[in-house]
């Protein structure tokens, strides 16, 4: 509880009690937060008979790899992993380049229409993605982009939020730096590439993590753009696979475990950026 903030430590019995209660509750919270993941991982090693026989157990009766073999055989798993990496990776990279370019123009170049452009970004920031979904689907259909990588990637290769966030960041970079470069004869391209971008690394990293996470996890978009199993991303493929036939739960749990693995690893290595990224979505 926030009451014991910076108060001199006077361990009264009442305080000890609230302290204990606090940690008991937090302990319950930790168990509730973690058990589903533990169950997912151990469940991916359990046989159907084991799952049905001992549903209250968290550990396999004996460790079986059939779930992992199954996901490999029943889905083109490597292809799905590759699709997810291509979709999330390439889209994130393009997003960073395009967003920062637009942000540079808005923050550093005076041009006719810049206010209009800025308002366009603010307006699109407020549009829920679902509202555009059907016309975008029709558009992709007419372009012949359905079920292709460019259809998956290009419409998502910029984000109003990213432009807005980077513009705010660029504005905070002192102008003296680019004025000095300008005297040395640098053009906009060089100022953008050699001065602004290197200084904006923390913001770019945060944005990269946020975009990659959202794209890697996205379900609705890949679900409507792709139609063949070969083009699906992990969440879409697992969802559809789970929707059809679940005669072996370990197979799906193995797929879920494997598709969580890259993000979980990234989270342990760069937790700071995840927290910053998620927190900025609430602070735009």
């Amino acid at each position, binding site marked *: 509880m926030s009451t014991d903030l910076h108060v001199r430590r006077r361990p009264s019995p009442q305080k000890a009690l609230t302290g204990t209660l606090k940690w008991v509750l*937090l302990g319950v*919270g930790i168990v509730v937060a973690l058990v589903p993941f533990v169950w997912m991982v151990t469940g991916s090693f359990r046989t159907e008979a084991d799952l049905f026989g001992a549903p209250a157990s968290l550990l396999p009766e004996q460790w079986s790899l059939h779930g992992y073999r199954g996901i490999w055989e029943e889905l083109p798993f490597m292809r799905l992993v590759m699709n997810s990496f291509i979709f999330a990776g390439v889209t994130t990279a393009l997003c960073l380049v395009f967003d920062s370019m637009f942000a540079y123009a*808005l923050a550093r170049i005076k041009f006719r229409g810049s206010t209009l452009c800025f308002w366009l970004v603010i307006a699109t920031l407020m549009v829920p993605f679902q509202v555009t979904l059907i016309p975008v689907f029709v558009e992709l259909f007419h372009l012949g982009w359905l079920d292709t990588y460019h259809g998956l990637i290009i419409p998502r290769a910029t984000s109003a939020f990213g432009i807005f966030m980077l513009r705010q960041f660029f504005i905070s970079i002192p102008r003296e730096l680019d004025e000095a470069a300008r005297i040395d004869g640098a053009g906009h391209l060089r100022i953008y590439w050699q001065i602004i971008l290197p200084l904006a690394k923390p913001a770019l990293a945060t944005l990269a993590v946020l975009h990659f996470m959202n794209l890697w996890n996205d379900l609705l978009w890949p679900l409507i753009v792709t139609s063949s199993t070969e083009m699906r991303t992990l969440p879409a493929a697992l969802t559809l696979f789970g929707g059809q036939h679940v005669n072996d739960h370990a197979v799906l749990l193995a797929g879920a475990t494997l598709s969580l693995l890259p993000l979980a690893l990234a989270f342990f290595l760069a937790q700071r950026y995840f927290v910053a990224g998620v927190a900025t979505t609430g602070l735009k």
Partner: protein
Amino acid sequence: MTATSTRSARAARPVPSTGRAGRSGHRPRRWRFQPAWLFAAPSLVILLGFIVYPIVQSFRYSLYNWRIGAETQEWVGLANYAELLGDERFWNALYVTVIFSVVSVVAQLILGFAAASALQRDTWLNRIVRSVFFFPTIVALAIIGIVWRFMLDPSIGLIGGVTELVGAEPIPWLQDTSLALPAVIAVSVWKNVGFTMIILLAGLKGVPEHLYEAARLDGARGWQLIRHVTLPSIRPTLLFATMIMTINSLQVFDLVYVMTNGGPLFATDTLVTMMFREGFENFNLGYASTIAWVLFAIIMALSAFQLRIFRYQDVD
């Protein structure tokens, strides 16, 4: 650039980057190539092509009985909207969406606030616990949906197993029309509490310590401190978190689609799952666009409301 920048203070120095050192200040209205457009072009094209144009199209579709690839589309005027107002599926979906949003936002605020204030100090232990609570936030809803669907399964799930241990019959949470929505809401809260905690933590850290000290001198204790110091001080953050979470939960799709697909008997059918079904399963693109526009209107109204609140905040 010449036209506008001569008026700005910075342009006292010529801009060599454009390669035109000698400037022609007269002819101010003539269009000239501006490098800004090169920088803006990729994003601008995508924003216009895949957000602005589709928004307009979406409204157009809602006035037609739109079928994909058809030679001519049948104009129906506002008939889709009229049909929607008489569609009990729509009212059901709106009801489910609103219940989902209100209950999950309130629960997230309470639990997120409790977690944030319990873990406010930056000790190593608190940091670890914070990461544990935050972890579900980064996991795909598709995965969370699959895992929880299995966990809640009465024959193989852990929840059912534990219920049996206690000596009760396992409950078919997701197969029961009155239990499915509470179960989905609980999973959504479970996933998002960490997000709320992080946002509120930032707010809590901004509360000046002297406010607490002053209140303590006045004899405030425990709950009184929270009620009269903490909550008023983090009001902007609270309002903001509420708005963000409400807007996000009004658009709920992934979790419902994976866990129940709107069922059983439409008990968890939300506006977006209904739109998805109408648009991409029944291919009633016009009708689905109508649902999209109603959702859009609701969210825009909320955003406008939010802007107003923040105006008031500035005045305070």
